[in-house]
């Protein structure tokens, strides 16, 4: 009860502080002092503290199961384990927006602390732009989605958290993803501030690169966690479904990756200034669009939970304000730097990074159109359509071939003007990749030519980066690790796709099901009682051709609050292969519906994404070390 009020009033104080901060910093902007007014820093810290207090009090309400709070009532239950009571705080709309605010204020405070060497006006303007976003979100939370709504009479018991969200990967997925998602706000504010100050330069590139890296690493890991969750919790046996909500997180990732590469050009060659600014604006706009699409309920997606149109309209208006603001700033203030040298040669690292950007923009348009088009068509002609995985696969997979080859060659080029060195070893590596691929693929698939070319390209990148990891001096290790991770990712996904097998059948207890490669035996079921669910555990024995038996125990959980049935897949993971079994209950029948899958190299998909983000981390800390 008390926590509720503390939380609510902290939010209001935080909003008031925003206005105060704007006033103080505008005054400071015109003052002659060389350093930023210390009060600005204190106020920003105070604002962060208020948001933290508000967030903590919401957590406290969740931990205490204080059902006088509407958010807690809607999303929690006394029988829930403590861990999920806490993670329930951001597992719902109101709480997740509070988390948005927390990250927004956290990042601007860190920015102020970390940017002491930067020009004063630039820092203050960044703060002002960020405060515009923060004010927008404060209003959004307070007007349309207050997490501290009071309920009277106080209900005895809450409605419970959707059981499908009661999962360790999904408990940490939102905070990590948000650090990446909302982290792009600081890049947005900083680039607008830099534009007004005509400060988009080498120095600015070096300074903003750190922030791009931080967002990028968190976003990468956040997307991976969501993907891992979908893999074992949804029981479809895949890790990426081209679902609108997944796409919405992929889009800022694509522009952020493009931005990351452009910043490298900016910090060493001081060119591509307008493009960097446009990418920064686009990235944050896409993050906001993502929030709008997910929270408004416009998207028809497996991830859609209950929602409210008023919220969508608010975000939409806010989004348009931000887009017009940023475009206005860009066109009014941006001046192309004319003093830079305009040496341009086709064979150079700049060109290769431009090619990278070209591909990223292409992938982005595919994903964007695939996501938006159904909404567009619904509004225009009220026809309901959906765009499935084949659309994305057809448009993206073939383009991976040139993408991978450019990725292998590009980083070997030098700035300004270059020629390809070590031609012989490159050709040698290429031949090895092609031969190796041919012999591996030969017996596996019908579409021999296409897959040979595709997998060869991936192996080519794999061997080249591997060789650099061992032979070359470690001057560009971050990039090599990240690119190596990417080649490994593509290889694992491809082989996973080609080699996966699946058996779906309906089976009774005690029955055996034989198929070409083995036999599935449904031995028995056992029932168990837990505090917030009852579970039915199936005992399965799977015999392959060699007579080797693997035991799997998938589970069906019947949660009591809310009454929901979920399937927990049982997965046996080895370095080579995941064996995945999930069973479903068909109501009122003695048959169980089971799905047994073997998924080769599953674990390598996660490992390679970790390597990818490790590359980002190395780059981040290397930068720090050098300064």
């Amino acid at each position, binding site marked *: 009860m008390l926590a509720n009020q503390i939380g609510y009033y902290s939010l209001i104080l935080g909003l008031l502080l925003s206005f105060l901060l704007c006033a103080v910093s505008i005054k400071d902007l015109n003052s002659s002092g060389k350093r930023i007014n210390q009060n600005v820093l204190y106020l920003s810290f105070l604002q962060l503290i208020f948001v933290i207090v508000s967030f903590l009090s919401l957590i406290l309400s969740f931990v205490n199961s204080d059902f006088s709070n509407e958010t807690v009532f809607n999303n929690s239950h006394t029988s829930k384990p403590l861990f999920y009571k806490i993670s329930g705080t951001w597992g719902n709309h109101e709480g997740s927006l509070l988390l948005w605010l927390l990250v927004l204020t956290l990042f601007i405070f860190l920015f102020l602390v970390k940017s002491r060497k930067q020009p004063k006006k630039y820092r203050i303007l960044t703060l002002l732009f960020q405060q515009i976003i923060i004010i927008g979100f404060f209003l959004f939370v307070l007007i349309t989605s207050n997490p501290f709504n009071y309920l009277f009479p106080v209900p005895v018991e809450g409605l419970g958290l959707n059981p499908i969200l009661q999962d360790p990967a999904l408990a940490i997925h939102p905070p990590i993803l948000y650090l990446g998602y909302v982290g792009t706000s600081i890049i947005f504010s900083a680039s607008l501030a830099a534009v007004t100050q005509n400060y988009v330069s080498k120095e600015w590139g070096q300074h903003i690169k750190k922030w791009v890296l931080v967002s990028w690493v968190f976003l990468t890991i956040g997307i991976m966690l969501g993907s891992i969750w979908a893999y074992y919790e949804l029981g479809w046996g895949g890790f990426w479904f081209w679902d609108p909500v997944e796409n919405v997180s992929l889009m800022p990732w694509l522009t952020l990756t493009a931005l990351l590469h452009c910043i490298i050009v900016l910090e060493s060659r001081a060119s591509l200034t307008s493009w960097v600014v446009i990418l920064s604006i686009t990235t944050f706009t896409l993050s906001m669009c993502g929030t709008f699409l997910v929270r408004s309920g416009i998207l028809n997606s497996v991830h859609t939970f209950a929602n409210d149109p008023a919220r969508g309209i608010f975000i939409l208006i806010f989004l348009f304000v931000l887009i017009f603001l940023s475009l206005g700033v860009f066109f009014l203030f941006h001046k192309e730097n004319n003093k830079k040298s305009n040496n*341009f040669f086709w064979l150079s690292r700049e060109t290769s990074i431009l090619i990278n950007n070209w591909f990223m923009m292409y992938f982005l348009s595919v994903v964007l159109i695939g996501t938006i088009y159904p909404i567009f068509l619904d509004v225009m002609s009220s026809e309901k359509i959906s*765009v499935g995985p084949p659309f994305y696969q057809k448009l993206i997979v073939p383009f991976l071939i040139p993408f991978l080859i450019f990725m292998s060659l590009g980083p070997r080029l030098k700035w300004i003007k270059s020629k390809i060195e070590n031609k012989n070893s490159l050709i040698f590596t290429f031949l090895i990749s092609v031969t190796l691929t041919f012999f591996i693929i030969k017996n596996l698939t019908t579409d021999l030519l296409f897959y040979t070319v595709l997998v060869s390209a991936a192996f080519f990148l794999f061997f080249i980066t591997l060789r650099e990891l061992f032979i070359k001096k470690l001057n560009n290790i971050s990039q090599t690790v990240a690119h190596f991770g990417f080649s490994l990712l593509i290889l694992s996904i491809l082989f996973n796709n080609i080699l996966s097998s699946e058996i779906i059948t309906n089976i009774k207890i005690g029955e055996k099901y034989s198929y070409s490669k083995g036999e599935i035996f449904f031995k028995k079921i056992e029932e168990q009682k837990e505090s917030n669910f009852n579970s039915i555990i199936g005992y399965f024995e799977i015999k392959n051709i060699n007579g080797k038996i693997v035991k799997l125990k998938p589970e069906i959980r019947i949660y009591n609050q809310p009454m929901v049935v979920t399937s927990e897949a049982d997965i046996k993971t080895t370095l080579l292969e995941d064996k995945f079994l999930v069973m479903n209950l068909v109501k009122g029948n003695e048959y169980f519906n089971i799905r047994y899958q073997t998924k080769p190299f599953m674990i390598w998909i996660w490992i390679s994404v970790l390597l990818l983000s490790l590359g980002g981390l190395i780059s981040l800390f290397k930068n720090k070390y050098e300064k």
Partner: protein
Amino acid sequence: MYGKKVKLRFLFLALILASVILTVFLILQSLRDNVVYFKSPSEIKSLIELDKKKIRVGGMVKEQSVSINSNEVSFIITDFKNEINVIYSGAVPNLFAEGKGVVVEGFLKDKNYFSATKILAKHDENYMPPEVKEAIGDK
């Protein structure tokens, strides 16, 4: 006649324009082939021509209509005006039950029979896809 810089700019713009046109063309082309339309049982009844393409059908699973054997599940989808028989072999999501909303993906055999390749899973017991809500009307 023009400086090197102007030429370069021009080349760049041409390249960008060309790739944008190519991208749009590619995307529109494959959108046409890969889009899956959603229909309610009543809309299927009023079809003049049977579509060979993959479609989605949504509505309520009719009470007492689910039957199951070792190979397949069959049931009836209704929007309380018209209904359609569905035959399905594949994984059945947990939230699939009689009297609940459902969306299936597959091919029409004729106006009364639908052969499903996928039953779409949903997260939430109370959540109903907007299409289904619309298909069923106010009931």
